[in-house]
């Protein structure tokens, strides 16, 4: 069992979610794809991206 599979199965077992072998294979594929995208966020410099309020109904207020 791979490290990923071991971790995934333990996590799902802890949440009382039953998974089969196909689930674990698919989850690993999806997880890898998502992580590939998400790791782009690790590369941002937070100085360049200040925390600002988000009101999705309107344009952001002029700064």
């Amino acid at each position, binding site marked *: 069992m791979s490290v990923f599979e071991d*971790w*995934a199965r333990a*996590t*799902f077992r802890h*949440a*009382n*979610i*039953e*998974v089969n072998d*196909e*689930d674990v294979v*698919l*989850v690993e*594929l*999806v*997880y890898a*794809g*998502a*992580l590939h*995208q*998400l790791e*782009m*966020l*690790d590369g*941002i410099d*937070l100085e*360049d*991206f*200040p*925390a*600002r*309020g*988000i009101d*999705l*109904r*309107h*344009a*952001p207020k002029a*700064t």
Partner: protein
Amino acid sequence: MSHPQDLSLREQADAVRHGNISAKELLDATLDRLRERDPSLNSTPVVFDELSQVQISQAPAGPLYGVPITVKDMYALPWRAARNGTTHNMIPASASGPYRNLRDAGVIVVGVANQHELGMGTTGVYSAYGATHNPWDLTRCAGGSSGGSAAGVAARLVAGSLASDSGGSTRIPGAYCGVVGLKLTYGSVPYDGYFGAATTFSAPGVVARDAGDARTLTAALVQRPLPQQTGSGLRIGVVRDPFWNDVDHETADVCQRALKLAGWKVTEIKIENIELAVAAFLGRLIAEAGVPSPDVLSTISAPTRALLLAGMLTPARFVPRADRVRAAVRYSLAAAFDTVDFLAWPTSPAVAPLLEDTWVDLPSGRIPVDVPNVRQASIANLAGIPGISLPVGLSTSNLPLGLQLLGPWGSESRLLDAAEHMERVSEREFVNLLPPLAR
């Protein structure tokens, strides 16, 4: 008179108002049309034969009195829970906010529109009701998640449908089925009883055969007039990479020709940090989507279950970073809208894929269609802005293609002006195209 469902939504409303057809005659003809055409589509798996007759007797004399529509399975109705494409009652039966607004306009909810289960896909392949088929080619996807809305409208089963859009779910099916799909600005209507309220990405949407019908239905939904203005002379911003460069060449050509036909001033622009938009969208959406209960998980398809379970494993550290990027992208978009009226690029990177094979071949390689579909669509959901997909012609394989316009917050009426302009300059060539099933 031709079949009442071959009339536009506006014509149906006018015909009932002027007594040319009764609401009951219109409803009966619609139920006949559903029985005749939907078995091959599966767009409307739940039809309210008796309850729709009851609605006629209770409907107020609003601007859409007696007009039958379908409602996506994401909205609770007073007599039916929102199931969200699953076998489970996800939101108990109640009069959801968007339903209330349409009910007050006098519409008749004739059935529940099929959708991709839990709204988590752009193909419509996975649903507790079975896949929705595309009326242009029954072996192909109708799109998702609001595929039932688009397929039913395209096949002339109903003239309008209440859809929703969390990552292109109204616009993509609109493009695949050759109809207009409009995503509203976030928060434009009450969200109670609407499954989309669970995330900050979802907004109700409408699907209709043309911009005029979309305007009429949207005005009823948002309960305010959407006055018509000229759609000529607009300034359009295009972002080439990846939205035009990494799409099927024919799709790009057809959309490019439509922009040229419209005579708008097209400028190539850059939007700061746009390359981070999909990551920010995913980072927060995964956190917000959560995981449904084990009994729901055990009854949904393996691919959807995998999406949700992978979310359980995703580190939370991305969420605050996603929010920072989200705020920055909103400022970038606001700056872009100081110089152009709308952004434009193909709604979907290619025609509707086969139900049996939902991968697409793009310049960047072969990939599951959900990935580039979400890339083309999700910036609107990340920022909260409205967007529309307009039919702009057919591929050489006779499948519809859609051009997407994205506008500033609250610009729904202007987006519809643009769509109406496109219909005028094309002499309605694109919106009058009929799928084989409807000929």
